[in-house]
């Protein structure tokens, strides 16, 4: 209905062409209001992100459907860099441009509230980030389920854990909103981008430490035991695909009364017969290997992602608190 009234006001007096050049054409647009403005202002960077993500997804899907693994490692590196790139190129400049050249004043002196402007900008940015990272995460996760059978990429490794499931989304959102907050406080595009670069790199480093030293310790360790002895070739029992073997120094051998013996057992013998004899003497009946099964991956990813999303929510709250007064 609002479009109806606006049409009637613009054409109420005089037919088109009365002033020589005519009225501007009234095109029906999918976007309106603040959403139109924000999309129009940032459409170049939004389309670049969506386009680049679409290309990457297409590449991954093609490789996966051909059962190829070429390009897997560069892709996983690219995905790890994505939160940094998004934070620096999308987050940091989101408001600094408006603050630097005064268009913030132009927008807040129109009839819509500052909160509306802030909300729309953050929402559209979040939408673009979520759409591109979800697509990449799903595609890469699919590729990984192929790769984990041919090579030993464990689910606990950064390139797998952080690039699949909800993790890329959470890391990217936190990096981007952190960049927005840095930009809003520092008010200078270049400075904000440099500081955001530092911030996002630190986020990556801290996160990998957090993953390795805290998050994974929450997982339940599963032990696989065998009773077929241990051969001279030391063929370990096969772990389920993608499983992460815990701590290689743990005792790998189990005796008939359930005692665990370490790697050093019968290490010094040279021949197969001597090894078999030695193992028998030590009463070793088989392997005992601790591992983290892949079934725990999803739960831990969601737990980790929710921590990052909670931090993102805190940054957003700060942005609204700060932006109400100082965003001009």
């Amino acid at each position, binding site marked *: 209905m609002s479009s109806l009234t*606006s049409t009637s*006001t*613009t054409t*109420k*007096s005089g037919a088109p062409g009365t*002033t020589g*050049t005519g*009225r*501007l054409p009234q095109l029906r647009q999918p976007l*309106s*209001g*603040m959403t*139109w*403005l924000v999309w*129009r*202002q940032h459409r170049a960077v939004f389309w670049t992100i969506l386009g680049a993500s679409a290309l990457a997804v297409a590449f991954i899907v093609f490789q996966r459907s051909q059962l190829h693994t070429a390009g897997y490692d560069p892709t996983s590196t690219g995905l790890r860099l994505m939160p940094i790139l998004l934070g620096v190129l999308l987050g940091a400049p989101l408001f600094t441009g408006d603050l630097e*050249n*005064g*268009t913030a*004043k*132009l*927008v*807040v*002196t*129109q*009839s*819509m*509230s500052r909160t509306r402007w802030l909300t729309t900008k953050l929402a559209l940015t979040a939408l673009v980030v979520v759409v591109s990272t979800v697509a990449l995460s799903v595609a890469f996760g699919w590729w990984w389920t192929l790769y984990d059978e041919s090579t030993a990429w464990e689910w606990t490794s950064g390139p797998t854990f952080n690039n699949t499931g909800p993790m890329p989304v959470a890391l990217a959102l936190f990096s981007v909103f952190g960049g927005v907050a840095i930009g809003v406080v520092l008010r200078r595009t270049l400075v904000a981008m440099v500081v955001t670069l530092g911030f996002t790199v630190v986020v990556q480093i801290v996160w990998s430490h957090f993953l390795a030293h805290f998050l994974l310790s929450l997982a339940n360790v599963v032990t696989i035991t065998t009773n077929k002895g241990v051969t001279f070739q030391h063929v370990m029992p096969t772990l389920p695909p993608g499983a992460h073997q815990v701590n290689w120094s743990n005792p790998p051998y189990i005796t008939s009364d359930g005692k665990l013996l370490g790697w050093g057992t019968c290490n010094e013998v040279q021949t197969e017969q001597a090894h078999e004899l030695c193992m028998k003497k030590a009463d070793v009946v088989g392997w005992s290997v601790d591992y983290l099964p892949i079934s725990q991956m999803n739960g831990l990813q969601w737990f980790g992602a929710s921590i990052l999303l909670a931090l993102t929510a805190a940054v957003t709250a700060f942005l609204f608190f700060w932006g109400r*007064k100082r965003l*001009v």
Partner: protein
Amino acid sequence: MSNGMYAGDSALEAHGLGMRYRRGWALKDCSFRLPAGRICGLVGPNGAGKTTLLSIMAHVLEPTEGTLSVFGAAPGSVDSGRTSFLTQEKPLFRGFSVAETLRLGQELNPGWDQRTAEDIVRAGDVPFDAKIGTLSGGQRTRVALALALGKRPDLLLLDEPMSDLDPVARKELTGTLLAEAAEHGTTVLMSTHVLAELENVCDYLVVLSGGGVRLAGDVDELLSVHTMVTGAKEGEDLPASLAHHPLVESRISGRQFTALIRPDSPATGPWETDKPSMEELLLAYLRSPDALPLITPTAQAQDQDQAYNTRTVAA
């Protein structure tokens, strides 16, 4: 004409407005009233607090102390669509075309008047498909003005609107502005330091200096209560018989003196008296920051009605 019509209606009312930045007070104890429907010049030296005052009125800044009401409400509280603010830098999105800039106005303002905006742009022969970044200063100001007026504001705040324009464009845009304001009864508050330009434009004046109001009121009234006195000097000073009139400013050149006074009785004597021009009046107040401030009754903030009487009587 608007004097009687809008005598009761306030467009703006400031009570003890103050704004402190890290480096100090930019505005201090600023109280005045602007009746609706007037074209008001906001005059003051650089750093007098003009931009700060306009920004508070436009709800871009929040004052440190004091209150301000725009048409009886706090700025931005009820309907910010009633106020348009054209800042000194006239920021526009450089990558937008002229048509897109007008669309911005349409998308963000419920009361948008596309016809008014387009007509202002068209009158300057600015192509609608041109990018803002490629326009000349005058064209850009015209588009910014179209954006400000297309909003159909009841109060239009302009910060040095014509400062970067050549005289022709300046005259043309001032004409456009006045025509629009007259047609819709818009109240205009316009800061400037080109005093000569105010003469045929403003019917109301507010002079800011050192962060405070020095002079505020209807132009005719302000001019009528002041007298320009020119005569021969006595010794090294003004004639003693002039001394009992409140003095705004005096200057001595050769054997002559010129003084602007605010006489409370006819200033008769061996000198010539004349009505000051607006420029003379403004210059005198700008040069004498210590002169007693004058705020005429229509420019008094409502609850301080008595202040005017006591001040003038005491003076």
